[in-house]
């Protein structure tokens, strides 16, 4: 099963390599990972999407907690109701024949055109991972040049916070 895990860490030298190393060294997989500082610049927040049965994910969260620089770990998929978002930039071949279709798809997915050139459109779509994935599938036949996905970020619903 896929799990979305948020990790609050000390914003210190080498933290990312400790976390990445933990995953590779113990054979856990990372499907996506996003990191950025929080309001308090001494901490960073990571969102990790991983896959594994319950025992493995339990080990992952315990092992993360064991790292000295990790302040808090929440496995959303297990513990909490949460909202998730991902952003994707998709650069497409924009030919006279498919421009209208690209714009129509962008409209349907409530995306935005963020860059236009003679031959290309770059579209931004934000939403759940599922929505972002669906958009990419829909525009693939239209001639995708490249994509950049942010990886998922997540936050619990209601009052709860990571810290």
């Amino acid at each position, binding site marked *: 099963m896929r799990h979305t895990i948020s990790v609050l860490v000390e914003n210190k*030298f080498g933290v990312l390599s400790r976390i990445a190393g933990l995953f590779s060294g113990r054979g856990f997989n990372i499907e996506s990972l996003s990191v950025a500082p929080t309001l308090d610049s001494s901490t960073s927040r990571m969102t990790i999407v991983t896959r594994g049965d319950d025992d493995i994910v339990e080990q992952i969260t315990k092992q993360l907690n064991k790292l000295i620089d990790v302040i808090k770990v929440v496995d959303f998929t297990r513990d909490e109701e949460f909202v998730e978002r991902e952003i994707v930039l998709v650069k497409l071949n924009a030919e006279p024949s498919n421009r209208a279709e690209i714009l129509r798809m962008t409209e349907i997915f409530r995306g935005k055109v963020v860059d236009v050139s003679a031959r290309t459109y770059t579209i931004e779509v934000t939403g759940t991972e599922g929505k972002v994935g669906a958009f990419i599938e829909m525009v693939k036949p239209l001639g995708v040049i490249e994509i950049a996905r942010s990886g998922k970020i997540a936050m619990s619903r209601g009052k709860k916070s990571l810290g």
Partner: protein
Amino acid sequence: MKEEAKELTGAQIFVESLLKLKVDLIFGYPGGVVLPLYDELFKYQKPRHILVRHEQGAVHMADGYARSTGRVGVALVTSGPGATNTVTGIATAYMDSIPIVVFTGQVPTHMIGNDAFQEADIVGITRPCVKHSYLVRDTKDLAQTIAEAFYIAASGKQGPVLVDLPKDVLVNQAKFTFPESVELRSYKPNVSAHVKQIERLADALEESKRPVLYVGGGMISANAADELKKLSHHTHAPVTETLMGLGSFPTADPLQLGMLGMHGTYRANMAVSHCDLLVALGARFDDRVTGKIDEFAPHAKKAHVDIDPTSISKNVKVDIPVVSDLKDALKKLNTEIAKRKADWRHKHEDWLAQIAEWKAANKMRYQPKKNIIKPQFVVEEIDRITGGDAIFTTEVGQNQMWAAQFLKLNRPRTFLTSGGLGTMGYGFPAAIGAQAAFPDKIVIDIAGDASIQMNIQELGTAMQYRLPVIVVILNNGFLGMVRQWQQLFHGRRYAYSCTEFQPDFVKLAESYGALGLRVEKPEEVGPSLERAIAARKPTLIDCVVDREENVYPMVPAGAPITKMLLA
């Protein structure tokens, strides 16, 4: 007016900090970038510095010091090759959760990443085998970092911490204030046992008809042997120990089952396989202990007390998890047990009778031969002559297992062995580290002829500092344990496991000015040990033993632990 803190160089701050931490010994080896530091060690003349012969030796010595004293061991080396030479020692300490702090020199901060002379990314190289590590980037952070490093190494689940010290950090100045105490918001190591879980554990013990206490190295780290004895004696629950747990519970105690697992005793493996309650205390269900995991303690409810949540339910599903400092948990458990009205003495008499039967059926034994020294006999002689009042270390292989099987240990911290990593070359430097901590004790490394050659250069260290370690080589002319596996599982094809060339160990010892003795007959073993002990100087005893003796019982890797080869 508040006293202004003094400006000191990083090197001075280093020494001052170690003195604040009451470090009395450093095992080290100098080189370019740490020279400012060595200069200060020279000027201060403290802490005492022991010059090793190889940086791996320094780390094993710090480890031996830590295991024998319970205090943090300290190693200090230079950058690049000095740092990379520490890796095996650090990994050894990591696998066995031993508190050491390793200081490595580093090239100046502005040169890091430039492939400068003797630069190695030692923080990166050791990342998977340290509890934590630091690259100090500013002299003003140095004192705080050193305080944190010691705190982290020694608290919670203990382990090695590495502190990388760039040269400019040692040379630059900063105000020196040493933190009174360390608080880290991301690290809260002092966990105490949940009362509800302790009650559940007490219930389980009360209900159990066939309990076993399964004790690992955590018992020694937690200094909880007295509480264990109390628990076992009060509840009449028998105790089995892992290799790492040896010394937690006296070998001669009637409730002692001996070591379990691959080379465990018949009764320990049978008891674990038939018990209805297995209480793991600071043990981690390692594969060398469990054998085939699905058939490990198949009838037992399992409880697990451990300070490290990651080791609970990692390999084996546990019914009663207790995340706690072991001493705290056992104290609470003993209090709880004392309230219970169970007839502890009689409630599992049948079980103890069954264990006695298993014990009688298959004692730890070997076939003595008239003119050939059996390696087990050597260990028995060591035990007889020291009366167990010594610190023992081992190398890795058959020597290690025979030491584990035939020594009678009375106290924790008297059996130092590389359990998790199985590092050949560990025993001798670890013995030197222990001897440095306890100059008046008898310290004996039980060695194999191959292992001893991995760090034999430390004879120089032992001589220089007059550390009268005794090395007893069980010399079979083979990589014995490898040969045993090849004999049993690879059709007797002894592929590259015979050390066809050997040095003359006696002359080798003598070339260092140490005492060298060669022993070829069983009746010479005892006298040679007595001579070594009386000599009070580093001694190598080369015992020529039966070449193809095997360690039994043996559970083939991956088999259930009831499937023991007994001879």
